[in-house]
């Protein structure tokens, strides 16, 4: 494993070793490019058949809120893409409860079914990973 490649083995023979990857999303969409960049990397990495989880906390929970209409700001609405992740076998999506509640959001406000977990559980999830990528 090399640090530079974020733990992805670059040789052809990877001996089928599957690693646990967590994408940590903490930024609101549209105001900065982080949310879109994270999604791009997730989709690229999906080709490597790893064990992928996505975490949404702090302002990151805003990324997965329903009802986004971006025509008025002339920016691509990438929120429907979260619904397509299932097709890439990316099905572990977590929202931190504390972050959700501080923003007046509830489970039914999200564009896809999310696993709602507390901060302690989130910390454990982070600890259990081989690679954590932050956006």
């Amino acid at each position: 494993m090399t640090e530079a490649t974020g733990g992805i083995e670059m040789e052809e023979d990877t001996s089928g070793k599957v690693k646990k990857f967590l994408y940590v999303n903490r930024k609101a969409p549209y105001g900065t490019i982080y949310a879109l960049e994270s999604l791009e990397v997730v989709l690229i990495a999906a080709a490597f058949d790893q064990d992928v989880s996505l975490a949404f906390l702090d302002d990151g929970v805003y990324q997965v809120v329903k009802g986004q209409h971006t025509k008025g700001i002339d920016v691509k609405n990438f929120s429907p893409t979260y619904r397509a992740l299932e097709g890439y076998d990316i099905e572990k999506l977590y929202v931190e409860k504390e972050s959700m509640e501080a923003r007046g959001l509830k489970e039914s406000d999200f564009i896809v079914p999310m696993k709602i977990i507390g901060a302690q559980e989130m910390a454990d999830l982070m600890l259990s990973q081989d690679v954590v990528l932050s956006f």
Partner: protein
Amino acid sequence: MLHTVNKSPTERNALDSCLKHLTKGAAVLLIEDGVYGALKGTSTTKSVEQALKSHPIYALYPDIEARGMQDRVIDGIKLVDYNGFVDLVAEHASVQAWL
């Protein structure tokens, strides 16, 4: 004075600082990620509602809608489009941006 805020109140303290510096006749316009400051039921709602008692607060609707927040705006916050943004700038003698 028209104050604009373009940062989320749960990411930076721009809104908080802006509200602390409002003087008589000042108005606030929330744009970009700043529109998260216009929402009901959040950890920052109370301070915005307090400011609303003495100052007009506006939010840019295209930014609200982009973020899916159209049904969550605090009562009393006025929604404006880009033309309304221009009008607000023209109506006030100066603009201060809280980045």
